[in-house]
């Protein structure tokens, strides 16, 4: 009898499927979904703060009163009503005069990234992205068989000199800069006012397109966020956002704002992929924006998240071992921590799970497997007391790991290339 690999299709997969393997870190996140574990690993908004009864009534009426439209196919570009509402939302962020014609509704911001990758990336092309960057974007670029060149950040966001150096290095192979300039995921930093113009100038000089991902801009804790890049330049900037953080990620409604010529191709690419975004979900968002106090709801979120951020930062200051540093986000959902020298956030994961606390190892946010000294901590989902308990557990884990390193010496600087994609080191989207 010959052997079996339990996969009869092994030799037939496309090249981009290579590296899609089971991951022990992914498996550990399975435990993090149990209530005993304080999860600082997710990226979920605190949906319990929504007026769920009122939303429920609204959704019921959508089916009973508007079902002939809301349960039917829609058009590829997305419902005109919703696109108008989206332009109103963008004007609140400072993007004025955008035309609903130039908006394409997508299945979350994620599909917008996928469509842009389909339009602009050939295999081997280079994408410049912050170091670290959003794990879901890394997945999109990997599927497009593009390479990601990370660009350094500091407390003021992308470092202009580092961007120039990266452009010089990769030359014409770079197709665009992918950036989350405001309350960045995972680092929690914001590109400063003065650097925004500088970064845009550098990209313009180099002929580099900019994909601006702005899911968190409305979740500011201290005054308004700086104006988006798209509010400063129309040309060469594609603006991506979503209702996942301001309303409901379960509806999967996002959008991309693009110049006319590109928008046409985005629609065709989207139709090829999904025919049209969910009409029901679009109708739900439209109705929510038209009939419910959504601006007040965002204020509520800001207050809840600010309190939680403060609690997390206070707990980190009180409890973390010496040598640990972290960012101080002015908005968004995440804090990025850097561990004392010699610690390895990925190797430490099982110990953390045993101590009933979870985080995302920094390696999930780099295409090249670096980030072992970092971790992403989420503060949007857990209340202040639970956040503090999570940090207390995490500090204990780090003390144990430091003791271990003291006995056996520091681990090797880098364990070489990762086997799977970055997503193998990050949880699935459902982890709270």
């Amino acid at each position: 009898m010959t052997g079996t690999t339990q996969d009869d299709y092994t030799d037939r997969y496309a090249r981009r499927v290579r590296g899609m393997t089971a991951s022990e870190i992914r498996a550990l996140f399975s435990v993090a979904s149990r209530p005993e574990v304080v999860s600082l690993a997710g990226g979920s908004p605190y949906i319990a703060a929504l007026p769920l009864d009122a939303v429920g009534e609204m959704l019921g009426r959508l089916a009973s009163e508007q079902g002939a439209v809301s349960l039917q196919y829609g058009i590829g570009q997305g419902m005109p009503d919703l696109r108008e509402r989206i332009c109103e939302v963008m004007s609140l962020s400072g993007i004025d005069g955008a035309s609903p014609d130039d908006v394409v509704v997508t299945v979350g911001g994620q599909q917008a990234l996928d469509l842009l990758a389909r339009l602009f990336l050939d295999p081997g092309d280079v994408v410049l992205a912050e170091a670290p960057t959003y794990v879901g974007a890394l997945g999109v670029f990997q599927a497009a068989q593009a390479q990601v060149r990370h660009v350094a950040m500091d407390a003021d966001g992308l470092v202009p000199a580092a961007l120039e150096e990266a452009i010089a290095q990769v030359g014409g192979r770079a197709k665009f800069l992918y950036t989350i300039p405001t309350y960045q995921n995972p680092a929690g930093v914001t590109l400063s006012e003065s650097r925004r113009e500088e970064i845009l100038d550098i990209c313009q000089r180099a002929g580099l397109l900019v994909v601006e991902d702005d899911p968190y801009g409305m979740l500011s804790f201290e005054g308004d966020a700086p104006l988006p890049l798209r509010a400063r330049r129309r040309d060469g900037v594609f603006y991506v956002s979503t209702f996942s953080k301001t309303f409901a990620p379960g509806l999967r409604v996002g959008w991309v704002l693009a110049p006319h010529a590109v928008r046409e191709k985005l629609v065709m690419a989207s139709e090829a992929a999904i025919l049209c975004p969910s009409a029901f979900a679009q109708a739900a968002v439209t109705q929510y924006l038209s009939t419910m106090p959504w601006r007040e709801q965002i204020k509520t979120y800001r207050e809840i998240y600010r309190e939680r951020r403060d609690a997390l930062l206070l707990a980190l200051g009180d409890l973390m071992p010496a040598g640990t540093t972290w960012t101080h986000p002015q908005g968004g959902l995440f804090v990025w921590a850097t561990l004392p020298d010699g610690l390895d956030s990925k190797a430490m994961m099982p110990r953390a799970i045993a101590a009933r606390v979870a985080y995302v190892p920094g390696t999930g946010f780099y295409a090249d497997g670096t980030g072992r000294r970092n971790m992403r901590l989420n503060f949007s989902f857990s209340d202040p007391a639970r956040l503090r308990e999570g940090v207390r557990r995490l500090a204990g884990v780090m003390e144990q790991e430091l003791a271990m390193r003291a006995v056996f010496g520091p681990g090797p600087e880098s364990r070489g290339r990762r086997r799977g994609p970055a997503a193998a080191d990050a949880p699935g989207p459902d982890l709270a």
Partner: protein
Amino acid sequence: MIKPMRGTRDESFPGSAGSAQPTVPAMSTAPVVAGPATTAPSYSVPPDDLTVVVLAGGLSYERDVSLRSGRRVLDALRGAGVTASMRDADATLLPYLRDDPPSAVVIALHGATGEDGSLRGVLDLSGIPYVGCDARASRLAWDKPSAKSMLRDRDIPTPDWVALPHDRFSELGAVAVLDRIVDRLGLPLMVKPAQGGSGLGAAVVRDASALPAAMVGCFAYDSTALVERFVPGMDVAVSIVDLGDGPQALPPVEIVPRDGVYDYAARYTAGLTTWHTPARLAPEVAARVADVGLAAHHALGLRDLSRVDLIVDEAGFPHVLGLNVSPGMTETSLLPLAVQAAGWDFGKMLVTLVGRAAARGAE
């Protein structure tokens, strides 16, 4: 030549030495290898009112694997016409079992909850019968150093080892202890958590300089490490199932990971490992493997089903690496592959095991 040692959990270097060569137990009886050509399975027909709860999930590192095992067992039981449901081992479990006691429980939990014997003890207290060995045997098999000591006592070959809690390294100095380990056991070495499965925290160490990092990786999963002499050879798993007429060894499964290492990804990504059923062994070697597997199952007092992991060295002698009292039941797990190779029906086998457990409960 390395002087083989007997390792125990807390004594690092006891003076007693085992036999110089791995020994194979005398074959007093012919090994029983189930397969299409040998033994026909004796399934029992379930009573109409048989109800089963499959336990899966838990808080162990293998939660994800357990959920996959549980779903597969659930499907197979339902496919065989049994009323079955799946539950996590959480705070709602015991009230649920009390209010609606099933005929028997199938434990598809991997890791400490399912395998360290504690849950079985609680089920015993609750008067709920379950498939598999009792709490004491489970505890013994779960702790690899204890299991190895037991095997060595019965002259069942297992690679030389030492088991050390991390405290010992901080007390005595890591460098000194690691040097002694390498001196006595030689290289390469296998480092793994004393308790745990799925290859998590395990590493082959070929160079002494890589040993400290391997120890740190191992101690992230468990406070005690098992360091074992690495035996080159063929990785083989023997599944043991008792349908009522005594434990039988199913055809051995040979494991050939594509990248040479049977780690987590290789275990649970279809396509990364080739499994040969039956293993490509000469008949007399296959018989020896089955015999050693059965001997190990008996030595630890296991019941109903188990999986024995072995290495067959270049001379054709098997060495037992460990025993599993809650073997994986996923699409890429070894016991279901062996069941298939034997020409058995997975669902009927499970139903028979459940029926046996339920009958024990009724005694």
